[in-house]
């Protein structure tokens, strides 16, 4: 039996770009990891896939805050997504998947849900 969850190492601190995102490939597909050093927490991970177009681009969007929420703007058509909840600010029915993320020494770990882990492994 596998563990219920899997904290996958996706990159190191040196790979991160302050106030911006990088894309990583995980067993759950492409994930965008954002590093906003002036916030607490400073790390966020959401799916890299823009739900409006299906293209893998979200890590390349501009970050910031709107009404206090940390957000990224899709680089394609500029919709904003809350980095904590994944909720799209322009369209209530749309959200991106979010992932728990933490710093483990020099490593950045993203938690990949078990079900996916297993289906990928199978």
């Amino acid at each position, binding site marked *: 039996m596998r563990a219920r969850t899997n904290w996958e190492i996706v990159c190191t601190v040196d790979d991160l770009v302050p*106030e911006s995102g990088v894309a*990583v490939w995980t067993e759950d597909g492409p994930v965008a990891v954002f590093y906003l050093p002036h916030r607490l927490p400073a790390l966020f991970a959401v799916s890299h896939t823009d739900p409006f177009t299906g293209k893998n681009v979200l890590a390349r*969007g*501009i970050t910031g*805050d709107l009404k206090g929420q940390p957000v990224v*703007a899709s680089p394609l058509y500029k919709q904003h997504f809350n980095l904590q909840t994944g909720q799209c600010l322009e369209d209530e029915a749309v959200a991106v998947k979010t992932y728990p993320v933490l710093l483990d020494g020099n490593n950045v770990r993203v938690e990949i849900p078990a079900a996916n882990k297993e289906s990928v492994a199978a």
Partner: protein
Amino acid sequence: MSKKTLIVIGNGMVGHHFLEQLVTTPAAADFDIKVFGEEKLLAYDRVHLSEYFSGSTHADLAMETADWYAENDIDLHLGEQVTGIDRDKQTITTPTAYYSYDELVLATGSYPFVPPIKGNEHPHCLVYRTLEDLESIRASSEGAKTGVVVGGGLLGLEAANALKSLGLDAHVVEFAPRLMPVQLDTDGGELLKRKIEELGVQVHTEKATTEIIEGADARLRMNFSDETHLETDLIVFSAGIRPQDALARASDLAMGERGGIIINDQCTTSDPHIHAIGECALWSERIFGLVAPGYTMARTLASVLNGDQEAAFTGADMSTKLKLLGVDVGSIGDAHGQTEGARSIRFNDEQAGHYRRMVISEDGKKLLGAILVGDNSHYDTLLQYALNEIKLPQQPETLILPESQGGAPTLGPDALPETASICSCHNVSKGDICGVIDAGCSDLGSVKSETKASTGCGGCAALLKNVVDSELEKRGVEVSKDICEHFPYSRQDLFNIVKVNGIRTFRTLIRDHGKGHGCDICKPAVGSILATCWNEHILATDHVPLQDTNDTFMANMQKNGTYSIVPRIPGGEITPDKLIVLGEVAKEYNLYTKITGGQRVDLFGATLSELPEIWEKLIAAGFETGHAYGKSLRTVKSCVGNTWCRYGVQDSVGMAITLENRYKGLRAPHKVKMAVSGCTRECAEAQSKDFGVIATENGWNLYVCGNGGMRPRHGDLFATDLSDEELIRTIDRVVMFYVRTADRLQRTSVWMENLEGGLDYLKQVVLEDSLGICEELEQHMADLVGTYQCEWKTAVEDPEKRKRFREFVNAPSKKDPVQQWTTERDQRRPLLEGEPA
């Protein structure tokens, strides 16, 4: 009680305005309304007729839609000419039917006067009044080289401009000794002639045409009474207008000696049930050939039909402010000084090409009239003095002297009385504006839609803005120019804060002058400001997160997440060797290849990680980044110029390359485009660019603030016959002033339209250095030119920066699986949504 019938003959500007007024009044309920228009098209804005040649359609020019007529229960008969009036039976006739009326309104306008010259019925002899006329002119211009306008008045010069814009060599033939004899005096007319000739329109004054015959080299030949002649392919007659009064004449209404339907102050003719308004009406022995007086008549008549005993038309101001072929002309009130005892003060700067004349009353207290040529910046102030009889200052000449010679500043909106007329087209006074502001209007847009001010000829736009701004300010209304929720400042404010405080990072700026963490609005805007001020690499650690994705990766993201690559090809000139390199690189990376409208080559479909590799190869072959991703200079388009072209008078390619290399990389509020043409044929379409340069025999003419796109705008002629150095210096100043003062994402065209004082103000700042900042602007530009670096070169050479181009930082060899491809016309392109692979 059954309804009465009101019939309006003529669906032109004034007839339409009358209906627009009437339907808002109680009397509208008393009438069944019918309108007859001879033209097939719904009433349109004739004042802006010429815009038809620059792309406006009837729909753009139309005053209203057919739906509006339906909603207001107005029975509209277009393309149905009224052919007779029976006053006894109170009926009108059209070719198809009879209709009865209780009240009849004649709004038949006027028709162009065609002088009785032998041969004037030739099919290439045309007039300039309706959209149909313009269609005929366009058709006639096909295959034509030369066009002549007969008549050097206001409309004639406008027609000449139209011929020029159709690519013809334009001539104006005027019977009088000067242009615009009605509005201008000898000196003014002379200067206008000189300026217009500089623009390539030939003016022939004191010419009487005796006959038009078949030409030898062109379609037609005009013979003049002085034995000279002129050959041309088409002729447009614009020798004045005549009131369209045929119907009235046939039904024996009282007429003026030289035509026109006589009306009293209530706009009623000699028949109490027949009224006349607009250009067909003769009031106090005068015909009014402008739209504003016609509108005033329309409003008067609407009130009269509502039983208003006081309503009266009492004449109208015939002052005009125009831009003819790009030359400012203004004429106010008694321009010729015909009032008894009137005296004149003249200011004539032949060097700058500015002529101003004031006509003042005998006692020196009142301004009676004025003439302006070359510069209309004094028009609004002078008009207000004249219309409101404001007492002139002790030394009235200060009103027309340049400020550097002790000239008075323009009249501020506060100095105007409540009764001051701001918009004469729609009869809006300063009091009316204050009224709607008090009733809740809190910005320019709502004041415009509430009062209609500035929606007629547009001449009052700058003044209206001043009045509205000053009134809002007085009421403590802050017009919010905040860029976003993080900064309570406009882009211009931020620019000054950054510059003055020497701020070099976004972090410092938001900490000291804003709040929160920023967003996709303020970050790129500040990124651009920082780049303009300090010119540091956009991928420096502090600046990376500010950039739009296109700037971050120095390439434009396409719909499938891949990027395009556009190397700079200055002026569109490229060696065969470089062209081969482009081909080889494109082939190696399987890039879709297309020639852009900016005279260079766009390579599509590169993945993030391929970008630095591709650029490395391009840079090695001598290419630089083309900044196709940036809000910065795109390209300087050029024609082939005098090196090869038979017509060229200057080296347009050489100048385009110089300009492109000078301004490349400069970060601006929005993209900037330029072009250089080697002669007036304008093959590079320079007038549609932010900066357009057209070669002349003596140097270069500079046009500024043109635009293509959704709202095309021809550039305004800014300066003429400049040397290379003068040209570059002038562009330096305008560019820098734009970069410093424009709003975020504001193209030069909108920027200029929003500058208080518009083009004239910009000319003062740049050509006369009225703000004393030109040296600083030039220095700033020089610093930027001196610190230019090819961003791609710096990036590929720096391993840290290259790290940003990893598609997945933990899986260098991973290909993005959502990018799927197919082949079309022998090239690779992304698979569309739902398209089978």
